[in-house]
Structure formats: structure tokens, C-alpha cells
């Protein structure tokens, strides 16, 4: 069993805490001039996304979590699972609803995604920061209105609904920032 000592604690380190894989968000050494030293860490539970605080006596060891990020190509969704492929080994892997989470709104076939693996199984999926998706439904465009003032909802090919400018029409390809789910621009060819 691999472990990390408190003196190896740093942001991004992956630990097993209460049976769940977690990532250190912040590590603070609490050491009074006189007295016992502690490491106070903020950790993100990689399964739930929740951030909690923990304290360890300095010098203690904590079990390491076998968590790694891999870049995989998104292939398709079979209704239950989302399938990914390693671009070089062609090895395929399926992620379920919990692992994919909100990323499902931004997954476009053939896009490269970051898939976080825990003990070799998909734990979380992070879409690329920007994706290009086409509009499947929106109110008719107002030609010539490029002012950007106001907006309207548009449904994209993945089912995601984003707020877009009034001049956007069905069938157009849009660049979307997946981190905030916002329209960036029309996709340039």
C-alpha cells in the first residue's frame, strides 16, 4: 500500500480518505513556536466534488489514492454508458452516469477528453475547455442584429441549452466554454 507522509503533502496530491479518493486543494502547516505540529489540509472528494478540511499530526502517513488523468477520445453513448478510446493503444473504456456527470452536456464524438481513472476505472470526465457544437433549435434569427444586446436560449446537438445572441440561427456551429457553459463565438471554419 503506497502512502504519503505529511511532509509530502502538496496541492494536487491524491489520497484515500474515508474510503474515497481525494485530491489536496490546500496544505497548511500549523506549528506553534512551542508545541505539536499539524498539517491542516483542504481536500476535494473526487467522487462527490465536496471540499472538506482534515488535520493530521505532522509526520503521519496517509494512504495514497491510485488516481491518474488520461487523455481519451470520446466515441459514443449507448444510452447507459459513455465510451472512450485511447488514441494510441485503441483500448476502450466505458464511463457511467456518475463519472460523466455534467460533462455529458459537452461531449462531442471524437473530441479528446480528460478521463480521471481510480484503480483503472473512470471516476470523472472533464471535457475540453472549448467545444464546437451545432444549434439544433432556437427562435428564428434576427438578421442584421449583431449588437449582442439581449439574447435567447439555443438548444445544442448534445441537448445543452445556452444563452446566445439574437442573430444565431439553427444549424450554426458555436464555440462554447465548457467551464461556465457560456457561448463564446460562432465557430470559425
Amino acid at each position: 500500500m503506497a502512502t504519503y507522509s505529511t511532509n509530502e503533502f502538496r496541492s494536487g496530491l491524491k489520497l484515500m480518505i474515508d474510503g474515497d479518493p481525494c485530491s489536496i486543494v490546500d496544505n497548511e502547516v500549523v506549528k506553534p513556536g512551542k508545541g505539536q505540529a499539524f498539517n491542516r489540509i483542504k481536500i476535494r472528494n473526487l467522487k462527490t466534488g465536496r471540499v472538506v478540511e482534515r488535520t493530521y499530526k505532522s509526520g503521519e502517513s496517509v494512504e495514497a489514492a491510485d488516481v491518474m488523468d488520461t487523455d481519451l477520445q470520446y466515441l459514443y453513448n449507448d444510452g447507459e454508458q459513455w465510451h472512450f478510446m485511447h488514441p494510441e493503444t485503441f483500448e476502450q473504456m466505458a464511463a457511467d452516469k456518475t463519472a460523466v456527470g455534467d460533462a455529458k452536456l459537452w461531449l462531442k464524438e471524437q473530441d479528446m477528453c480528460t478521463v480521471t481513472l481510480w484503480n483503472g476505472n473512470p471516476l470523472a470526465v472533464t471535457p475540453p475547455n472549448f467545444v464546437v457544437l451545432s444549434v439544433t433549435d432556437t427562435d428564428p434569427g434576427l438578421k442584421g442584429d449583431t449588437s449582442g444586446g439581449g439574447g435567447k436560449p439555443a438548444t445544442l446537438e448534445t441537448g445543452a441549452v445556452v444563452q446566445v445572441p439574437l442573430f444565431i440561427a439553427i444549424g450554426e456551429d458555436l464555440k462554447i466554454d465548457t467551464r461556465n457553459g457560456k457561448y463564446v463565438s460562432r465557430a470559425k471554419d
Partner: protein
Amino acid sequence: MFPVPRINDSRDVACNVATLKSWQPSASFELIKLRADTLKQIRSFFDKNQVLEVDTPTLSSASVPDPFIESFQTRYIPLTQTMQTEQYYLHTSPEFAMKRLLASGSGSIYQISKVFRQGESGRRHNPEFTLLEWYRDGWDHHQLMLEVSQLFTLLLSPCVELAAPQFITYEQAFQAVLGINPHTVDKTDLLACVAKAGLANVLDDNEHRDRFLELLFSHTIEPSLGKKRGKKRDKTNNMPGICFLYHYPASQASLAKTGMHNGQLIAQRFEVFIDGMELGNGFYELNDAGEQRARFEADNHSRKLMGNNEVPLDENFLQAVGHLPECAGVAIGIERLLMVMSQSQHINDVIAFPFERA
């Protein structure tokens, strides 16, 4: 006083540190100058108060047995190489040597020196740091707290708006935050209090009660010391202040005299905090040689139980302790003081070349 840059956003600081190359200083020249000006002001303060500046060795053949302070070790190698090499320690504070001067009749003295502590690295720690340590001949810790407050007010008031200084006992702080008396609470209630604070399982239940008090103190009490809450919940109204905490449990006396307070044996020791951060520690100095040796031996015994090396006791110091006049002493971390003055979030912002770049 030149204008001090205000760095309020810790993210900016982290970004700043990351983008600089490692051969360059991590502190800005404004803060390098702030350090120079601060040291100048401190020297002028003690000069006016007729406290003598002294210089004692960094290398010592003996070290401090405190179970939670580790010294850097090095070896002296004679040029001839015919003799055995000798073990030396880098001092963790100039306390022992300064007390040898006091015991020899120096009168009040101060020193600004670099000190070294193993393993202490983090947002508020650098393994090598600058300590201002001074002793007042004939004073007790209450008088010394007032002088610390005077010096801090002098140094800080041009940089930050300060609330009035606060003086509270260790017991009052525990009562106010946790509703327990740290001197008399039994182990069961203490463990219950630890669990209630969300700190169960950090320590083994059989550890000494002081470890639990330290855990509670550093997690639930210290962050609020020296912070005057603003009206409503508006954080911008919060104002830093100087907070003195005194009368520690007798078991945490270290090198302080013990005494009675409200029928309770306490350590005549204080610590000073600003904005939730410890800046210094002071004692009404113990001058009973037998008691001092017994405490050191107990410290070495604790080290042994924890699986750490015992350290050679400083016999020169132990001989001097019995000759020490009635006096009070305090040590202040200069980097922490500079952090408060410049509102810095990381100690690396006030050190030209911190440990990672040394």
C-alpha cells in the same frame, strides 16, 4: 515611511511567486526595504530605552531539548584531521547564550539573529528565520507585554489600522471559544470537546492532555486572536489588533517561572498574536537551576518516548540559570511582523531568498 504595497489576494501572490525565476528574489524591493527600515527602527527603539545590543554564537555544542523543536546539526572538522570531528548545532534561538550574559551582569539586552529550525516550512514558516529576542533585567512578563505592545504599535501603526491591544488569559480564551477550563477539564470532557470541534482521530486518545489543548488552540482559538470583528458580517470591517495571551498551563511552562493564579498553578508565560497569527513568545524567566534541569530531563525523556534523539544539555546554560536575575524575555519573529506590516499572505513575500531558493 515609504508607501507599503497592499497585497490582499493570496492568488495574486501565488501567481507572482510562480512566474518569477528561481534566481530572483521572491520578495519585492519595497518589502526588502521595509525589512531594512524596520530593523533600523527596532535598533533605535532599544537604543532609546537603553537596552544593549549583543551578539552570541549561532553554532553551539549543545541544543534545546524541547520535544517539538528540532535543530540543524553540523560537524566541526579540524584542519589537521587528526582529531575526531565534533558535533555542533545551529541555534533555534539565542536564549541560552543571552541568559549567560544576563547571569553575568549584562543588564537588559537584545539581539537580532538568524535562527534555524528543522522541518518548519510553509506559508508562515521558513526553516531559517530572523528572531528579535530581548530581556528586561528586573521586569516581569506583565511589564514586558506592555513594552512589546509599545514596539508593535510604533512599527505597525504607519502601515495598518490597529484595534486596541487585548490582554487575556489562556483560560479566558478557552472559556470564551470552547466553554472549557483548560487547567481543570478532565480527559473525557476534553476528548468530547475535541470531537465536537471536528478534530476526533487526529491524536491517539492516550496522548498527553497538552497535545489536545494545543490541537484545540491552534484550530479553534488562534485564528480569532488579534482580530477585531467588524460590525455586521462585513469582513472589510475586520481590524487586526495585538492580542496577548498569558498564564499558560504549568505543564507548558518551558523556561518560564510557574506561579499561582486564582488558586491554579500556571506558567508565567505569554504569547502575542496579530490577525490570527503567533508573532512571539515570552517568559518571566525561570532562575531555579534544579527546576530547569528537571524540565530539560523530562523533555529528553519525552523525546525518547517519541522515538527522537535525546540532545546534549547545555551545561554552560544550566550553570548560569541559578545566577539569572529576576527578568523577563521575549522572542519575536521578524518575518511574521513584516507579513502583518505588508498584509502578505506568504512568508516568501518578505524574504529575499526563501528556503526553496536558498
